[in-house]
């Protein structure tokens, strides 16, 4: 029972990070109707920028969030302005392939610069754990989960309580009506892409605390992001949070009770099952 509780809580903690990681993908799809395959590139960039800042200057990954989040916003907005915007009236698959190309370029640049070796990022608290009664929890997981939840609260505030959030939601609901109401749709698109990319890069920063740093990082976690948004609803922030936690718990229970090698299989199976068995509600 103790093991079950420990694994369950541990799964909840990592699941919040999955949700945080995935929300940017859902936001961009909701506003731009674009499936952002470059999400994997931003996740990987977040991991590498964090690792580099830590390796070169000894900066703690959590402090790196101050760099990766704004950098992600800037890069994301730039990608939207320079690339995605030009294809806004093209068939969806064109944008899909374009963003896939962006991801491949980023991945191969990382291979060129850093090589293919998997790297680790260790902090003073990497090995720390906290005992709560019979349940022992990893400190990095607790910290990362707390930051993810903070990010969710901040995002919910922006979307619900600010003009920018209102504009984002308006464009997501009806681009034409939003434009007729005087909302600068082009700017909202860039903002949405920027926020989504900032979420991805900052998620990469958080996840660098317990996952290996490799150019293939994005490939692994983009699939999990798809799984979460498909399950939770593409723009439903609450649904994404629940889906992320569900995936995290399912993965950890599978790893503990069946085999650690099957952990990633869970998200593959869930994604395939979700795509086959239910109609995706793009409106969340």
């Amino acid at each position, binding site marked *: 029972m103790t*093991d079950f509780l*420990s*694994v369950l809580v*541990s799964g909840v903690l990592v699941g919040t990070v999955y949700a945080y990681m995935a929300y940017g993908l859902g936001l961009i*799809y909701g506003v731009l109707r674009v*499936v952002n*395959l470059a999400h*994997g590139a931003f996740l990987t960039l977040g991991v590498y920028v964090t690792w580099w800042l830590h390796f070169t200057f000894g900066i703690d990954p959590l402090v790196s969030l101050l760099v990766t989040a704004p950098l992600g916003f800037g890069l994301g907005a730039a990608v939207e302005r320079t690339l995605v915007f030009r294809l806004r009236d093209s068939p*969806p*698959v064109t944008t*899909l392939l374009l963003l*896939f190309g962006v991801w*491949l370029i980023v*991945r*191969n640049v990382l*291979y*060129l610069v850093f*090589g*293919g*070796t*998997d*790297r*680790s*990022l*260790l902090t003073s608290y*990497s*090995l720390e*754990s906290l005992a709560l009664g019979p349940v*022992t929890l*990893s400190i*990095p*997981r607790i910290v990362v989960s707390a930051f993810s939840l903070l990010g969710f609260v901040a995002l919910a505030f922006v979307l619900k309580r600010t003009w920018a959030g209102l504009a984002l939601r308006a464009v997501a609901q009806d681009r034409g009506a939003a434009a007729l109401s005087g909302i600068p749709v082009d700017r909202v698109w860039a903002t949405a892409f920027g926020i989504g990319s900032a979420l991805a890069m900052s998620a990469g920063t958080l996840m660098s*605390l*317990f*996952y*290996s*740093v*490799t*150019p*293939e990082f994005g*490939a*692994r976690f*983009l*699939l999990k992001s*798809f799984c979460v948004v*498909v399950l939770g609803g593409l723009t439903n922030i609450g649904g994404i949070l629940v889906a992320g936690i569900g995936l995290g718990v399912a993965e*950890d229970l599978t*790893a*503990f009770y069946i*085999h*650690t*090698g099957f952990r990633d299989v869970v998200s*593959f199976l869930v*994604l*395939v099952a979700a*795509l086959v068995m239910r*109609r*995706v*509600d*793009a409106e969340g």
Partner: protein
Amino acid sequence: MRTTPIACAAAILLAACDDRAAPTPATAPAPVAAADPMPANVGFLVSGDRTYANGGMIAVDEANARGGLLGRSVELIVRMGLEDAAAAVAAAETMILDFDAVALIGPNRSAHAIEVGAVAERHGVPMITTAATNPGVTGAGELVFMAAFTDRFQGRVMADFAFDSLGATSAAVLTERGEVYSEGIGEFFVDRFRSLGGVIAFDESYERGQTDFTLESRSMAAAAPAVVFIPSWEDEVALLTEQARALPLLDADGEPTVFLGADAWDNPTILEEGIPAVEGSFFSTHFSPDSDDPTARAFVETYRARYGITPVGGDAVSYDAVRLFLEAATRAGSLDAEAVRREILATENYAGATHISHYDDLRHPTKSAVILTIVDGMKSFHQQVDP
């Protein structure tokens, strides 16, 4: 219809996932150019951040002090810090094509050596690997030899030690996923331990670079094994053992589970970092610097005098690999690859930093292993195991 972009994206993503071995450029320093216009260049490949070229240099300097190789001075062309197989292959090609290397020595990682072996075969250059231990290393062809024992032997040594000497009847094995050395020796250990009547209570793998081992540790603790065999490198060993000990990790009788390792543990990092979790652990390796054997002692003393540190097993087999080639070429009286190959294969009772009885048909050496233990933060000789 709204599922189409998601489905399309997922399909592309699934296709993209199988690309872990994408090529990367060689990032190691450029080889040192030879000063002698007609030296016999010997390529020396070092995977990762290891000191193994030191061992090779001692062998080369000894040969040059005796007049060189067939009237020519010997130059070691060293390429260090090779991060992956692609970089090792590129370095090997450069050594052969640009430096006219007469032999390749190394690399020390099996995954790299397997790829480099094909290069040596293609160019008709003899090759002797250093600390690479996977038996598949020599599969590239007749010109590829090993200086180290194989993981088949090493896995057997550690399984026998666990079962017979430690009295363990249940064991856990944790290997690095997709890594030929780690998974290979893990399989040999499992097969042998089971054949002895032991139970493998846990046999799983982790990803390279992983830092959070809480789930694996918890699963291992639930299995309560008497020993855990971790044939992995220092970074993961340090993290894994510390996280497992913190749970704690105990056997069925409530005693601390004993950690076992292999020759990848034989590097200064594990001890220098003072990891308390590995205290009382045992690991197999190529030689002990405490050996009383005269030729091993001579090597250790030379190494210490020259570099100010104590050699590890990888240094020892690197020294041996270079010497094996030089002695075989001398006996052959030629640098012809086929002649050298025949002489390496004919090696008998070689005595260097380690000893080799002979080579078998697969070009694997028949030689002893030693088991070291970690006591008070220092490694010390525990026993020698002969084939």
